C-alpha cells in the first residue's frame, strides 16, 4: 500500500523529517507515537500533500504511484485521507454541500457518475450513525463553532463518506473524552477492511486500547527510532518518552 523510503522534509530551511523509512501493507494498522515536536504531523501533512513543506530527499510510493508527484486533491481521490490534528473551520460552507462535492470528485476519479441526491442522503445517514453525529451538526458550516471533540468526530465522518484506502489519523484522540474516544475508535474499526490501511498518530497509548495496531513506531526528532508490535505502546506508556530520547542517543552512537 505505502512505502516510504528515506523521506526528508524541511520547512523554512529547518530540517524536520530526517530520513523516514516505513512500509505499510494492506489491511494493516500502524501507530506512530512520539513526543511533541517530533515531526508526526509533518509526516502526515507531507503524505497528504501540504505545500508548505519542502521535500529534500527520499520517495513515497502509494499503490504503485509516486505520491509526492501528486497534488493534494489527486491524493485524496486516489484514496489518501488525512484526519487533521486541527480541523479547519470553514464558515459559510455547509458540511453537506462540501461532502457532496468531495464524494462526487472521488467518484468521478473512479469513473463513477455523481450520486443521486437520495442515495447520497441515505449514505450520509448511515455514516452519521456510525460516529453518532446528528443532523444539526451536518447541516452546519464545516466545523464552525464545533467543539474540539465534534471536529474530530466530523473528521471520521468525512473519512467514512470518502471511503479511503489509506487513512492517517493525526491525534484524533486528543481533546476527546472517553465516550467520544470510544465512538471514534468504534467508527474507525467498523471502517477497517482487508483492503484498507490506517496510520494512527497518537501521543498516548489510550487510543490504542480501542484501535489495536499491528505495528507501533516511535518517531523522535524526525526519525523512527524504534518499531515493534502493540506491546511497544505499553512499554512507552510505562517508561515514558525519556526512554525514547535515550534510545535515540544510543542509535546516534553516543
Amino acid at each position: 500500500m505505502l512505502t516510504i523510503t528515506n523521506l526528508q522534509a524541511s520547512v523554512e530551511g529547518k530540517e524536520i523529517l530526517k530520513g523516514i523509512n516505513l512500509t505499510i501493507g494492506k489491511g494493516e494498522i500502524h501507530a506512530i507515537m512520539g513526543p511533541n515536536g517530533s515531526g508526526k504531523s509533518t509526516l502526515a501533512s507531507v503524505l497528504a500533500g501540504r505545500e508548505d513543506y519542502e521535500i529534500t530527499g527520499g520517495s513515497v510510493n502509494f499503490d504503485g504511484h509516486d505520491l509526492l508527484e501528486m497534488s493534494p486533491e489527486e491524493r485524496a481521490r486516489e484514496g489518501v485521507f488525512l484526519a487533521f490534528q486541527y480541523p479547519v473551520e470553514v464558515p459559510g460552507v455547509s458540511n453537506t454541500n462540501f461532502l457532496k462535492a468531495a464524494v462526487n470528485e472521488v467518484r468521478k476519479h473512479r469513473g463513477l457518475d455523481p450520486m443521486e441526491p437520495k442515495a447520497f442522503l441515505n449514505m450520509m445517514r448511515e455514516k452519521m450513525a456510525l460516529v453518532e453525529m446528528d443532523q444539526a451538526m451536518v447541516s452546519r458550516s464545516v466545523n464552525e463553532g464545533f467543539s474540539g471533540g465534534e471536529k474530530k468526530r466530523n473528521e471520521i465522518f468525512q473519512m467514512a463518506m470518502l471511503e479511503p484506502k489509506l487513512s492517517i489519523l493525526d491525534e484524533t484522540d486528543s481533546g476527546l473524552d472517553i465516550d467520544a474516544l470510544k465512538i471514534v475508535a468504534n467508527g474507525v474499526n467498523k471502517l477497517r477492511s482487508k483492503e484498507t490501511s490506517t496510520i494512527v498518530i497518537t501521543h498516548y497509548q489510550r487510543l490504542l486500547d480501542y484501535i489495536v495496531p499491528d505495528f507501533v513506531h516511535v518517531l523522535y526528532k524526525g526519525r523512527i527510532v524504534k518499531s515493534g508490535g502493540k506491546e511497544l505502546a505499553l512499554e512507552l506508556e510505562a517508561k515514558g518518552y525519556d526512554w525514547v530520547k535515550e534510545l535515540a542517543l544510543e542509535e546516534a552512537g553516543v
Partner: protein
Amino acid sequence: MQDLQEKLISGFQTVETALNGQAQTPIHVIRKQALKRFAELGFPTIRHEEWKYTNLMSVVKQDYVLGLQTAPNLTKTDIEPFLMPDVEANVLVFVNGTYSADLSTIISDKGVEVMPLSEAFKKKTATVEKHFAQYAAWQNDAMLALNTAFALNGAYIEVAKGAVIEEPFHLLYVNDSRKQSTFAPARNLVIVGANAEATIVESVHTLVSGANVGLTNLVSELVLADNAKLSHYKVQNDVEQSHFVGAIHAHQEATSVLNTVVVTLSGGVVRNNLNAVLAGKAADTHFYGLYLVNGKTLVDNHTLADHAVAHCTSNELYKGIMDDKATGVFNGKIMVRPDAQKTLAYQSNRNILLSPNATVNTKPQLEIFADDVKCSHGCTSGQLDDESLFYLRARGLDKEQARALLLYAFAGEITEKIELEPLRERLESIIAERLHQELL
C-alpha cells in the same frame, strides 16, 4: 466641446423654463441654491479628501447629454431582463431620469402612497417640503448639490403609520446611452411611518452602444419614523461603460431599524455614499456591502453611521473580492456625538485580492465624543486562507473548486442579509456562476 459642468448649468435653465408654475416654489429655491453651490464647487478632484482614490475626471470629461432633455422610447421587452422574476413587486421605472408610467407597475394600494416625485411635488407639497433635502446636506458636497439641483424626478414612497407593505418597491433606473452618452439624475424620497415596514430595491441599468458611456447620479433620502423598519437593497450589476455616483441619506427616529445591503458586481466607476443619522433613542442601523469586481471596475463605498443620541446601534460589514485591475475603496466613519452614550458601533471591512494588480484602500474613521460607548472596527485584506484551501483539497476538491467554494462562502456572509429571498437567490446564483468562470 463644452465641459460637463457648464453644460449642466445651462441645461438647468432649459429644464427650469419647463417647470412653469413650479419655478417659484420653496423646492425650486433649494434647487437653484444647490445649482449655484455646484457651480462654485465643481466636480470633485482627487485633491478632495473624500475623493482621494476615486478620480472622476475621466468620467466627467465624456460628452454627455442631460438625460432629462432626451426622450428615449423603451418597451416592456427592453426592461424585462432588469426585473426580478418571481417577485410580486411594485416597479417604478425611470428612463434617463424621467418616470415612465407605461413601464411601471404599482400593485400596493393600501397603506402606502407611491408616485413619481414630480407628482408628489404637486400632490404632497407639504410633506415633500418638510423632508426634501433635509437629510442629504448638499452644501459641502458637489455631487449631492448637483443631484439636488436636478431633483425633478425619482420615486416618492410614503408608508402610512403601522402599515406593513409586503410587496417590495423596485426602483429601476435605465440610463439609455445608446444614441448619446447620457447623464441621468434621479432623486427618491421615502418616508416610513411609525411602526410601518417596507422593502426597497434599487437598480441601475445602462444601455450603451459604440464608445458611449452612461453616468447616473441617484440619491435617496430615507426617513424612518419611530419603530419603523426599512430594508434597502442596492444591486449594481451594470455594464462596464456605466458610471454611478449616488448616495443614501437616512434619518432614523427612535427604535427604527434600517437594514441596507449594497451588492456591486460590475460597472465602471461606482461611488456609493451611505449615511445614517441615528436621531432617536435606540435606533438600529445595519450596513452590509459586497463588492465582487474584476476588469477595471472601481468601487468606492463611503459610509457614515452618525450616532446623535444614546442607546443606538450600528453594525457594519463590507466585504470585497477583487480580481484583475479592479479597485476597491472603503471609507467607514463612525461618529458618536456627545449625547450618544451607550452607543454600540461595530465596523468591519474584509477584502480578498485575487490578482496582484487589484488594489484596495480601506480607512476606518472613528470620531467619538462620548465616553460610555462600545465601538470596534477592523479591516483585513489579503488572499484566501491557505489552511482552508488545503483542507478542502485534501478532501478531493481541486484548487479552483476549493477557491470558488471559499469565495462563495465569503460573499455569502453578505448576501444572507438580504431578506427578500428571490433576490438573494438570484444574486447568489450570479455570484456562483461568476466565481466559477473567473477561476477556470
